């Protein structure tokens, strides 16, 4: 890489050619103030806060857009620069309403921070006299145009990160406004409620309704964890105050998602109205009784010993942690010799002999073949990456017999029976990527094997933690008939209801570990409260095979426990010395995945 020598504030530095003045300054730890700039977004030079003096240039230049050249002399804090920057800031404050005391984001606002930094203790120009309508039509967030500085971060996030292109800049000059589609109310627009625009907004123009007026940044606790809504395993930041979960933000360092989340990850868990299970409950023909965890374990251990391995059945929801699946293997399969075990979701078939890559392969592909999977409906963050590739000119071939949410964006839509045609088309391109899921039938798998060797495969599992279940070979097949003791590890997901009890005999003892009360827990003989997504600990393996950590952001309600903790207690009760640690899981999976 070519290196250029430049001078910033009299310091001689060498930086790679082609980077911007702002990037060069940041590499050297020189702070240039910015508002419209965001590390995950392209540069536009909208706010003018980053202006710097460059010798030989007629005017002050925006550092975020100006590329460095050899011998360039830059001043970032000269009197002229600071004066002009303060002027820019005063003008930003003079347009619309930037009065802090009744703004939701006061204390967490980048514009306010700039005001403090540049000592704006009064407004140089007259200010807010014009009122813009607040768009409160969206269920999850609110758009207050009066607080907007038109930095365009939301527009870029919507287009560049989510590839949804709902937000844009409408009108011109001083009438410029952020518009959703053709200036529609947000709830009537093409918004898919991913909330990424809110996450990048530097001011109080976009904010979440759920957490509004519940405190500023400094009063919140942020815990990094992993989303357990689907197999993509997006990095999240759980934001709490006083033990209440207020927001879920995308973790910019999350490897699968890089800050982006979908509606299911960002909002759905916050609005879960289902009733929790207060404490372990024992139900028999004599009635219901709340019992302690010790007694619950005693009851379960007693039944396990009584019925014997052949009459035990275990059903595991796909959200079970790696630790829980590890313990199921060690305790039930290896120690007790139980073989009647199933996961609620079936894994995607492995296409033998083909390279399986990570989601990041999507970005570099010129032809995407989606088969047996509907990522836009079920794993939206993966679909955003596909749509991003389409924006850059990639072709999309969707092979599905049902309605696929990606079909409207596809260049070619084919039936499964025509997969040969899709394989042929993809084989002609330089860098095809096949995105497939468990919905792919066996003959289609054989056809896919005939694709060019240049193709990369990405399996998108339907189940959250199916990768680990497959690696540990937990899915042993399940026969309901003989079961006299059924243990269901349901977790906090919404799948797995009374249909799991189909063909289960009336005399079967049913034990359920669940986050929320449901028809299934109403029928169970033993109900145990499971820690939910924001409470539980452990790890999950995402569809790419990456092991990711679950951190507890709040104390489990009513003494609920993580799935692996319960299994570990049960093992102890059964007199088996089986425990699990992060290393156990990592080592086991390293050899298996």
């Amino acid at each position, binding site marked *: 890489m070519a290196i250029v020598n430049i001078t910033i504030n009299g310091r001689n530095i060498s930086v790679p050619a082609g980077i911007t003045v702002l990037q060069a300054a940041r590499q050297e730890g020189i702070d240039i103030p910015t508002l419209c700039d965001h590390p995950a977004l392209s540069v536009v030079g909208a706010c003018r806060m980053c202006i710097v003096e460059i010798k030989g240039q007629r005017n002050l230049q925006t550092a975020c857009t100006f590329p460095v050249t050899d011998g360039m002399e830059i001043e970032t804090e000269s009197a002229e620069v600071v004066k002009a920057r303060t002027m820019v800031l005063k003008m930003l404050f003079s347009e619309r309403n930037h009065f802090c*005391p009744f703004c939701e984001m006061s*204390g967490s606002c980048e514009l306010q921070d700039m005001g403090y930094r540049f000592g704006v*203790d009064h407004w140089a120009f007259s200010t807010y006299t014009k*009122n813009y309508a607040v768009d409160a039509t969206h269920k999850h967030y609110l758009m207050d145009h009066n607080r907007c500085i038109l930095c365009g971060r939301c527009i870029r996030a919507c287009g560049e990160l989510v590839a949804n292109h709902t937000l844009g800049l409408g009108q011109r000059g001083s009438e410029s406004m952020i518009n959703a589609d053709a200036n529609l109310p947000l709830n009537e627009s093409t918004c898919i409620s991913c909330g990424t625009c809110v996450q990048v907004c530097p001011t109080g123009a976009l904010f979440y309704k759920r957490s509004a007026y519940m405190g500023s940044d400094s009063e919140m606790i942020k815990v990094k964890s992993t989303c357990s809504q689907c197999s993509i395993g997006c990095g999240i930041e759980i934001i709490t105050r006083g033990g209440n979960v207020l927001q879920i933000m995308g973790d910019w360092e999350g490897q699968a998602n890089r800050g982006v989340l979908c509606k299911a990850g960002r909002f759905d868990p916050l609005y879960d109205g289902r009733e929790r299970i207060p404490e372990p409950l024992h139900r028999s023909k004599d009635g219901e009784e709340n019992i302690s965890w010790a007694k619950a374990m005693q009851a379960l251990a007693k039944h396990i010993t009584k019925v014997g391995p052949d009459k035990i059945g275990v059903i595991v929801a796909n959200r079970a942690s790696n630790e829980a699946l590890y313990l199921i293997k060690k305790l039930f399969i290896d120690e007790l010799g139980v073989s009647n075990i199933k996961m609620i979701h079936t894994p995607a078939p492995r296409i033998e002999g083909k390279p399986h890559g990570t989601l990041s392969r999507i970005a570099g592909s010129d032809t995407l073949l989606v088969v047996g999977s509907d990522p836009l409906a079920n794993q939206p963050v993966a679909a955003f990456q596909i749509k991003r590739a389409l924006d850059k000119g990639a072709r999309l071939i969707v092979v599905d017999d049902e309605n696929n949410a990606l079909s409207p964006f596809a260049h070619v839509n084919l039936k499964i029976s025509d997969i040969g045609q899709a394989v042929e088309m993809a084989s002609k391109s330089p860098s095809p990527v096949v995105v497939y899921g468990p919905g792919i039938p066996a003959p289609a798998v054989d056809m896919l094997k005939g694709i060019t060797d240049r193709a990369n495969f990405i399996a998108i599992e339907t189940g959250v933690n199916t990768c680990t279940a497959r690696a540990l070979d937990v899915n042993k097949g399940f026969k309901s008939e003989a079961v006299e003791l059924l243990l269901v590890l349901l977790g906090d997901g919404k799948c797995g209801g009374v249909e799991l009890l189909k063909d289960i005999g009336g005399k079967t003892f049913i034990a359920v570990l669940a986050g929320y009360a449901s028809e299934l827990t109403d029928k169970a003989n033993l109900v145990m409260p499971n820690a939910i997504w924001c409470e539980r600990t452990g790890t999950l393996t995402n569809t790419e095979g990456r092991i990711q950590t679950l951190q507890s952001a709040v104390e489990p309600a009513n003494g609920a426990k993580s799935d692996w903790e319960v299994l570990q207690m049960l093992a102890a009760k059964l007199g088996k010395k089986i425990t699990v640690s992060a290393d156990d899981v990592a080592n086991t999976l390293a050899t298996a995945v």
Partner: protein
Amino acid sequence: MAKVKIATDWLGGCAGCHMSFLDIDERIVKLAELVDFTSSPITDLKHPPKEGVTVGMLEGAICNTHNVEVARQMRERCDILIAVGDCATFGGVPAMRNIVGTAAALRRAYIETESTVDGLIPDSPELGVPLETVVAVDKVVKVDLFIPGCPPRADAFYYVLTELLAGRTPVVLPPELFTYD
């Protein structure tokens, strides 16, 4: 050495800034050894003396003709004028009425409020006439120092006054005392 004279007054505000000023607590005794509080809305003498004061402090926004008179009188009678609080520095809460306009705000407040029966917009000649636009104090008279905050912290008042007494003019408050809310 003669004591430094200080006068305060309020415009379209809520008295919160004056309350915050009193929150400097026992330090006011120490301050009283050095300064003479000639007049304020919370003392017997309400108007700054004709012979003038060194420091004048104004709380509240300019909302009506009476506020303009008070601000002008203070400006004429003081050497250093300090705008105190978010209303005096930015327009603050009273300036929110600019969004709907004065006529609509008065109508809403005195006639259309759900609890009002036979409402009447006050129009006594003794009252100041509401302005079309609420503005900060510096839009009407020259202001020398600004102490923003809603209200400004007690320490901010103390800091500014002790700095002035020491012969220094604080340009911008230090970060720990500089707040917009």
